[in-house]
């Protein structure tokens, strides 16, 4: 019982240290043949240490991955749809995993219904056209047996960025 607050404190400090570290890591790496050397210099670290730190954070899940993010509209994926599904609470793990297997699904979350409606599973779908998105939704519905859903097609993108780590 006595140890619990102690552990929590360490965790909070880790998070703070991670935030401090990430603040110095740009969301878009410099175009350099050895980009980690540039990052290391900015962090006043050795390249090897920076690489170890990044790898540790990937292992811990703090960094989901280091990867390229595309402008999806420029690679023909001009249509995105948010589809909300009503799924029985008891089945939601199974259905959520099943829907996640569709490569066209980029995000799949169980969410609170917000006191607004009954939809509790939220998926983001990307396609080259509205028609293609509808086909994907039909396949998802057929495969999972979930027939109560709503589709919200995107009309205009006002903002799309990634999470920024701000000053403490």
């Amino acid at each position, binding site marked *: 019982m006595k140890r619990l607050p102690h552990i929590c404190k360490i965790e*909070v400090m880790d*998070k*703070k240290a*991670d*935030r401090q570290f*990430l603040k110095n890591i740009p*969301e*878009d*790496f410099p175009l350099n*043949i*050895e980009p*980690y*050397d540039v990052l290391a210099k900015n962090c006043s670290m050795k390249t090897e240490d920076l*690489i170890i730190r*990044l*790898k540790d954070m*990937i292992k*811990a*899940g*703090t*960094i*989901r*991955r*280091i*990867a*390229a*993010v*595309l402008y999806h509209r*420029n*690679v023909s994926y001009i249509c995105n749809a*948010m589809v909300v599904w009503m799924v029985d609470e008891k089945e939601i793990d199974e259905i*959520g*995993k099943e*829907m*996640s297997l569709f*490569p066209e699904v*980029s*995000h*799949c*979350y169980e*969410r*609170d219904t*917000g*006191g*607004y409606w009954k939809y509790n599973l*939220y998926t983001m779908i*990307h396609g080259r056209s509205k028609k293609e998105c509808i086909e994907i939704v039909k396949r998802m519905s057929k495969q999972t047996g979930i027939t109560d859903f*709503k589709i*919200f097609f995107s*009309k*205009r*993108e*006002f*903002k*799309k*960025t*990634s*999470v*920024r*780590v701000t000053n403490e």
Partner: protein
Amino acid sequence: MHLDDIDRKILNLIQHEFPVTKRPFSHIAKAIGIEEKDAFERIKKLKERGIIRRIGPVIERKKIGYVSVLCGLYVEKDKMEEIAHAINTYAGVTHNYERDGELNLWFTVTAKTKEEIDSFLEGLERMFSVKIYRFPEKKVFKIKTYFPV
């Protein structure tokens, strides 16, 4: 936009992972069967051409103590731009889309505390006389944007 087979291979590979190693372009080149310099030049061009938005870390917000929430609201057509821009001014807003449907403006907001988010949302509700519905996450099944090209 024209992409040749090598461009496609590079894009499909680095969407999964950009190598965390001293010479990442050498790893990419080896996997595809080209020279390091060639891999670097192609990726540079793909960024300049607006195909690659960024190469960098995808951060798990929760693990660094951030909270986030999906929000949806109904906005009258003639107010759409004004409200959308007011939402955008907040740094914690990462996505903001006009959509077809009964709730026609959807955005996600991330901050260090739930209180910060609430005060931002309550401010918007007062300023524009709108009701913002909050859909906080309960469980993440998947977050991975991958566009095979």
